[in-house]
Structures are given as structure tokens and as C-alpha cells.
């Protein structure tokens, strides 16, 4: 039977992050001018590092908290309420670590996973999208050519989160141009490897605190120790889909956090703003709008929790995860729009928190499998 009870440990974790969000994360983000690309500021990552939350999936034996997906979903919602971009940084680390946790060799686990833990946790990237496309694996151009002792990798990845600072990059590349999907292989690339360059930093209207950049792989030689499932040449696609299907539930959790933040701002504002001699919350049009927002957020949250629970049970989570992201991202967009309507002109101030939330909500239908791709996945399994 499905159990969505939040236990004491989880409650404590939520309280800790909520306090950190109110006292440190949100004030930092509001004070900081993200309008121009500048050096990455590690302050918020360090704060999470003190709680060992930079990559909360890392198993205990490698120095992490080894949290289940339900708990991580709760954490991501909480962080997203204050900073969706900080949540995206954590999610990227989770994405990076997932294939290694699922299919990495002992050497890969022992040498890499501990680096994502503790106060000095590094950042990492999961590189999939390319200029030629992200949703369609066949449009991928990054390729790896087999040599006697490993592979030579060439290509470019675009819009890669954490790239400017990532110590490791995990990517998938095809090894046979005629059978791209079945020949996909996963590679772990240390940042210092010869031939790797960080290209232009993408100046985005979303995820202000996080940084995205292009990564160029120029004749990179990868030894067998950094190939995922080195002896299983047909493993990549099935590892990639598992990683994506697990990871996208965290995008759903971010969507819930963004929607909740927008709702809370609109709710507070509606209790202060007086129009026609009463608080606007007491106008039926506004109160109904708030009710609709709260109801939708609850729907999105429950779908997200259910998908997380299924992942933790090892049950069939593909559809649940895709539906949660599909639904929660649409709801975040609806709620930020409705909340903006209640705030009026205040929501339109460039760089205001509501402005940032609205932008971040727009991004949700594109990342982690576009919503149309998710519809295709769900349709194929109905």
C-alpha cells in the first residue's frame, strides 16, 4: 500500500532547509545581480555542503546521505521555493551520480562518488543536449570511436548545467552512426582531461544562480576505467532511459516548489493589498484564484510523491514520473501566471522574485525531456 507519511527525520530536514532558505538562500538570491555572467559564487553550494546535500543520493558507504527519492523530492521542493536554480544544481549532480550508482564499477564509485559529498563537495555535469537537438537521440552528433584501449571522443554539448565549474562530466555518445540508440555508451570525463574545453557560457533568462555552458570534446582519449559498463556495449540506452526516468521526477518537485513560492507570495500580498475598502483576498475573484492555485499545487505534489514512492519501491515508475513532470510543469506555469495577475505591476518588475519564478516556470516544459516527448513516452506505454 502506498505510504506517503513524512517521518520525523524528513520533517526535521524540511525545517532545516526552510530556515536556511529564509535566512540565507532567498536573501542572497534577491541581493545578487545575476543580469551579467560572472564567476560562479559558491556560497549557496557551500551552505548545502554543510548539510551534505549537494548530491543527496550518494550512498552512505561513499560518504553521502543515501537518501531515497521521496526524501529528495521533499528537499528539492523546499530548496526550489527559495532558489529553483540551486535545486537545479543539486538535480544535475543527482543526474551525474545516478548512472554511476546504478552501473558504475567499484573503481568509479570509490574514486568519484565521495567527491560529491561533504562541505567541499564538487559540482558535476550531465551532458546530453547538443546544438542539433536533445530530445531526439538520433540527432546526437557526439561520437566515440573505439581504439585498442578505450575510445576517442569528439563532439559538443550545449546548455550544460554546472559546466563552468564541474569537476566531472558524464555524457552519452554513440559509437556506431548507423545504430545510434543501441550503440550509446556512457563516459565519465574528468574536467582536467586533455582536449576538453568549456566553450561560451550561455546567458539564460532562467536559473539565475546556476551556470550553463557549452562543452567541447576534441579528440579526448577515454580509458576503460571511465567507461560505464565497459564490457557491455549495448547497455547505454537502457541506462540513459533509467537515469532520465528517475531524474525527471525531481523536475516535478522543482515545479511544485516554484508554484508554491508563487502562491505564497500571492497569498501574502492578497492579505495586505486593500482595494474597494477590503483586502483583495476577500474579493471572490481573488480568493477563487488562490483556491485553484492551492488545489493544483496539491495535485502536482501528490503526483510527484507517488512517482518518488514508486521509484523507491522499484515498481513501475516510467509513466508516473513522466506524468508528474508533465503535470507539475504545466501547473507551475499556470500558478505563476495566476499569482502574477494578483500581484499586478509588482510581478512585472525585472529581476523581482516573481519575475524569476515565472521565467523558471517557463523552462520546466523544456528540460528533462520536453513535455511533448513525455507525452510520446506515456502514449507508447498506455
Amino acid at each position, binding site marked *: 500500500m502506498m505510504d506517503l507519511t513524512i517521518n520525523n527525520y524528513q520533517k526535521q530536514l524540511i525545517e532545516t532547509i526552510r530556515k536556511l532558505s529564509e535566512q540565507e538562500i532567498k536573501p542572497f538570491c534577491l541581493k545578487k545581480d545575476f543580469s551579467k555572467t560572472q564567476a560562479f559564487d559558491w556560497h549557496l553550494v557551500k551552505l548545502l555542503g554543510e548539510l551534505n546535500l549537494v548530491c543527496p543520493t550518494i550512498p552512505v558507504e561513499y560518504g553521502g546521505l543515501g537518501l531515497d527519492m521521496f526524501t529528495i523530492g521533499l528537499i528539492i521542493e523546499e530548496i526550489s521555493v527559495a532558489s529553483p536554480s540551486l535545486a537545479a544544481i543539486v538535480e544535475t549532480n543527482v543526474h551525474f551520480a545516478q548512472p554511476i550508482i546504478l552501473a558504475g564499477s567499484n573503481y568509479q564509485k570509490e574514486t568519484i562518488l565521495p567527491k560529491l559529498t561533504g562541505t567541499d563537495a564538487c559540482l558535476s555535469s550531465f551532458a546530453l543536449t547538443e546544438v542539433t537537438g536533445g530530445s531526439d537521440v538520433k540527432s546526437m552528433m557526439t*561520437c566515440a570511436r573505439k581504439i585498442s584501449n578505450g575510445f576517442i571522443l569528439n563532439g559538443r554539448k550545449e546548455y550544460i548545467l554546472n559546466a563552468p565549474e564541474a569537476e566531472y562530466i558524464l555524457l552519452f555518445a554513440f*559509437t556506431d*552512426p548507423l545504430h545510434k540508440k*543501441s550503440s550509446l555508451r556512457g563516459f565519465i570525463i574528468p574536467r582536467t582531461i586533455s582536449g576538453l574545453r568549456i566553450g561560451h557560457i550561455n546567458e539564460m533568462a532562467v536559473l539565475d544562480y546556476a551556470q550553463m555552458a557549452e562543452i567541447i570534446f576534441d*579528440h579526448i582519449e577515454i580509458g576503460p576505467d571511465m567507461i560505464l559498463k565497459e564490457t557491455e556495449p549495448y*547497455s547505454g540506452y*537502457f541506462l540513459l532511459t533509467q537515469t532520465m526516468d528517475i531524474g525527471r521526477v525531481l523536475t516535478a518537485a522543482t515545479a511544485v516548489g516554484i508554484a508554491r513560492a508563487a502562491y505564497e507570495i500571492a497569498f501574502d500580498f492578497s492579505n495586505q493589498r486593500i482595494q474597494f475598502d477590503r483586502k483583495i483576498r476577500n474579493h471572490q475573484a481573488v480568493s477563487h484564484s488562490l483556491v485553484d492555485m492551492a488545489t493544483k499545487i496539491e495535485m502536482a505534489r501528490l503526483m510527484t510523491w507517488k512517482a518518488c514512492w514508486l521509484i523507491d519501491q522499484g515498481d513501475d515508475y516510467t509513466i508516473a514520473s513522466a506524468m508528474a513532470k508533465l503535470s507539475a510543469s504545466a501547473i507551475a506555469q499556470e500558478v505563476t501566471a495566476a499569482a502574477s495577475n494578483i500581484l499586478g505591476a509588482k510581478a512585472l518588475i525585472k529581476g523581482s522574485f516573481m519575475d524569476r519564478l515565472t521565467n523558471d516556470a517557463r523552462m520546466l516544459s523544456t528540460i528533462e525531456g520536453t513535455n511533448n516527448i513525455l507525452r510520446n513516452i506515456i502514449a*507508447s*506505454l498506455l
Partner: protein
Amino acid sequence: MNLRELGERIQTAREEKKLSQEQLANAIGCSQSALSNYEKGKRRIYLSLLEKLSEILDKPLNYFVENFEEANDDLPLANLDSNLVLRIINNIYSLDQEQIKEVDLYIQYLLWKKDRG
């Protein structure tokens, strides 16, 4: 090959091994209805399960997944030499912009020639 065909391969391998759905489901640690969905292509299959199936059904992983593509992905390229195409793609990364434009022009010329028969 798509999820449904992958499911058929699982079913064939199971029957060759003379296992019932229930027996195989128990061996890989899932319910019979879940296995039935895998065999019908109604449930996405992930690497960890494929590895278990490979071991229990005595089939190499590539028996299940070689040439796996989603529906409508079949390309009319079966006669091409994969290594040659991969070498061409790899070499393109070593060229500068002007040289890449020359390659593109040459390909367009070949396509034009092909169109004229």
C-alpha cells in the same frame, strides 16, 4: 526493433528455457503482471533488469538489445560501413569552418549528381 519486439525476444527466450511467466517473474524479482507487461512492450525495461534476464535466460545482453531502436527508426543504411561513417564524422571535428563548408558543398554536389541519375 522497439519495446514490443524486445518483449517478444524475452518471451521467446523464456519459452526456450521452458519457464512459465510466474517462474521467471520470481527469478527476476517482479510480479507476473509486470513480466507480462514487459513481454507485451507495455513497460519500459531498464539495464539492471536486462542484465538479470540475460543471466537467467542464458542469453548475451545483445540478444535482447542489439539494434534496439524506437518505432519508425529503421534507417535505409544497412549496407553502409559503420566504421567508415564514424571515421568521417570524427575527422570532421578536426577541420576548420571553411573546410567543413567545402565538405558540405561536396556532399551537396554528390546528392545533386545522384538526383540526376
